[in-house]
């Protein structure tokens, strides 16, 4: 398990770094949350037209019309969909991982994380980034779908105190 151990140690360090960064970012976003009142929440539902794979509807919710551009929103959701598709992709790499895991009676996952988990970390990072750069300045907050059981993308709309309460 030695090569996997070094990967996992490296992965751990990276993970810790991301966690600290995320914590700091969440803290600043939480300040925003506590200062501003929640006006409403919008839920972007799953799109099952392609089967059971994780995909969200790109339909632009009417409540966000005054807050954000349609194109920006669609781009965010499309990127999320692409990331989830990458996580669930069936291909040579995933089959190899599956077979190797089966042969080691799945004990290999004690040493390394699955491909899906790696992509989930990528998604979490992407959402943090989007929140910071795009959504928080507009008074919106995206919640990572994994916290809602991959059912919805929850967008919290905060009251716009600078302009006046709506």
């Amino acid at each position, binding site marked *: 398990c030695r090569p996997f151990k070094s990967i996992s140690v490296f992965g751990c360090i990276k993970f810790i770094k991301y966690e600290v960064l995320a914590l700091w970012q969440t803290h600043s976003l939480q300040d925003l949350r506590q200062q501003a009142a929640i006006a409403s929440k919008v839920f972007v539902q799953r799109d099952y037209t392609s*089967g*059971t794979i994780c995909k969200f509807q790109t339909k632009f919710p009417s409540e966000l019309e005054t807050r954000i551009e349609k194109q920006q929103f669609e781009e965010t959701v499309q990127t999320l969909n692409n990331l989830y598709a990458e996580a*669930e992709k069936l291909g040579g790499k*995933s089959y190899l991982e599956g077979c190797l895991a089966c042969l080691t009676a*799945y004990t290999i996952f004690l040493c390394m994380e699955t491909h899906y988990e790696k992509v989930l970390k990528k998604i979490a990072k992407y959402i943090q980034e989007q929140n910071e750069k795009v959504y928080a300045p507009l008074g919106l907050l995206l919640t990572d779908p994994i916290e809602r059981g991959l059912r919805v993308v929850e967008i919290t709309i905060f009251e716009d105190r600078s302009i006046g309460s709506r």
Partner: protein
Amino acid sequence: MHLGIDEPRECQYNQICTHNSSPMETPHSKKRKVKRKWQIFPGRNKFYCNGRIMMAKQTGVFYLTIVLILVTSGLFFAFDCPFLASNLTPAIPAIGGVLFLFVIGMLLRASFSDPGVLPRATPEEAADVERQIDAANGAGGPGYRPPPRTREVVINGQTVKLKYCFTCKIFRPPRASHCSLCDNCVERFDHHCPWVGNCVGKRNYRFFYLFILSLSFLTIFIFAFVITHVILRSNRTGFLSALKDSPASVLEVVVCFFSVWSIVGLSGFHTYLISSNQTTNEDIKGSWSTKRGKDNYNPYSYGNILTNCCAALCGPLPPSLIDRRGFVQPDTPQPAAQSNGTNTCPTTQLQSHMCHQDQCIQSTKFVLQAAVTTPLLHAQPILLGGGPVLQPKPSVGGPCSALGPGQPSLPSSIPGLSCGGEVLALHDSENHCHHHLHHQHFISPEETPCTAHLGHHMPLYDPASQDSLHEDSVRGLVKLSSV
């Protein structure tokens, strides 16, 4: 879906591993003690090792499975292997050992892992879905019963109906189903296996399949080599003395003989299911059979057997959606079904703070509702004044009048509204009380305190039954005054 009265929920999952996470002494010490999410999990599951292991409630048959496998394999290694190793080849116990370890490993993995449970909707989500459903169905009169909630979606050219789960307050994804034994919605639900002591769903189907496949190999292996052993012995010493020398062989042969038929059959059935990418649930219902319609086909199949098998067995392993070992954040919304109070007994203090509040709001609502419909409340304020539970008349009058104009909309929304939804509606008329026995008189007198919960178990409010409501309200108020 539950349309009847549930059996009383025992506060089961706090009895395990208490040295790791001690139960709360009082609700007021909540700010010091952080709970893990498995401790407030609303489904009927048992958790061990601080949330790492997850099983169904009934595990008796699982222990039987373990005992059968261990005893039969143990007897094989103890009585038959020495002879076979010395007379044939030592590879036999070696292969047998590897097979046995694989079987046990797969069984434990299938039994202990999360089958793919979908977490229940948060109150805001549930309210949002309700709004969408009401908008879709259109507003009806007080007596109007909305049609069963379904959504249609076209997947790969096939129209699939998504059903609404009343317990979990979500529209189930395709292929998901609600397990009535575990009280959870499970993704790609195959079946609930009592032998494995868990549901078989998206996340543990491959372990289940590998378990039954390797078990069928092990059973055939043991059966074959025990017979070989007996034959070799009887060639030397005669049949009866061979049986006397290794009595365990008889037991093994009997167990294996009966197991072979069932397990090999089951393996074959599941091999067919995997190759056609169906679940046991779909196969039993005949969802994709051509008998239903000429154009009926399975939209999830990849077209060829190899891809279907690879996808089921070697595809990426999805993560658990319920985050059992995460800590409960004090400001996160609790799932809607939680406030129904099914998972805590009112007498215990565990996680009942929210639950009590919501149930009290419910009960207050019913009292007020009854009050509006009967002249009793207005005529005799002393009944309420005496009770420690409700505030004196002037403040009751407030929410009472607030409820008045809104009343016609209440009856139609009662059957479907979640507890959480009603909490939102009555946010300004909150009363603190620790006594919710009175509310059950408005629902049905025969329900016991522990089982009375106000989600989908409420009968339809019929405005025509005002007399019974009047009686109930009188009974309730008398009980209140007696407290």
